[in-house]
């Protein structure tokens, strides 16, 4: 396996959906290739922190404004 091939299937590897023989081949490459080792570690961490950063809460005052907006526009609440 070469670096390009590894990076193309990195999500499937991290999601553990690769066939066992492909996983073995990928891990053999990883054991010998420091750039790919660094790439996969930072890619995995990117997935984690990207998701964590996007988990925003709707502010309570915005919910209150939404209630008022719906009451005015739909005649309820």
């Amino acid at each position, binding site marked *: 396996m070469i*670096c*390009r091939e590894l990076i193309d299937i990195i999500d499937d590897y991290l999601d553990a959906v690769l066939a066992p023989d492909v996983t073995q081949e990928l891990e053999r490459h990883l054991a010998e290739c*420091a750039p790919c080792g660094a790439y996969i570690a*930072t890619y995995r961490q990117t997935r984690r922190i990207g*998701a964590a950063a*996007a*988990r925003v809460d709707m502010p309570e005052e*915005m919910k209150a404004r939404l209630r008022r907006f719906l009451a005015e526009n739909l*005649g309820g609440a």
Partner: protein
Amino acid sequence: MSTEDRALLARAAAGDGEALETLMTRHASRIYRLAYGITRSAADAEEVVQDVFLQIVQKGAGFEGRAALTSWIYRITTNTSLNKRRGKRRELETSLDELLPRYRADGHRDGDRAFLVSDWSGTPERELLAGESRRILEEAIDRLPDHYRAVLVLKDVEELSNEDVAQIVGDTVAAVKTRLHRARMALREQLTMRLGARG
């Protein structure tokens, strides 16, 4: 859509405050998260939430599609958010091609060795999500095209399957997987350029 959801929407459309409150409790946060993820503006996301609620209450009871209410809401939110962003802040979006890995002719990575082996993944997550690192991360997310951010939020935050994301954004599963991969690679590249250099 379930019979219960259809009844809830019909009550909300008739002005039943309790039904509206139930809809809000169940869906407002996820609508806001997705709208903010795409628009990257609290003010725009608030307008999207209001617009989406009007749409689901006014059109929901007559909705004939087979999709679940939540999927339908995700689809409306995605479309409304992308429409809101149309023509805005394009200057921030970097060409993704510049942020993808480069390869030599033999398929191995190309570039400065120190950059290629730069590994900031050992930095604790709470540290990466605070201060200067957080700012770098937010800027990297800002630079992604809107429709890339849409699939990132649907997949990584809402934790939907690739199939569900594809249905919501109206694309193929293969296209969604490619977009996710390119978005994550572009984020990783930007983070490594800036966090790796500090390590």
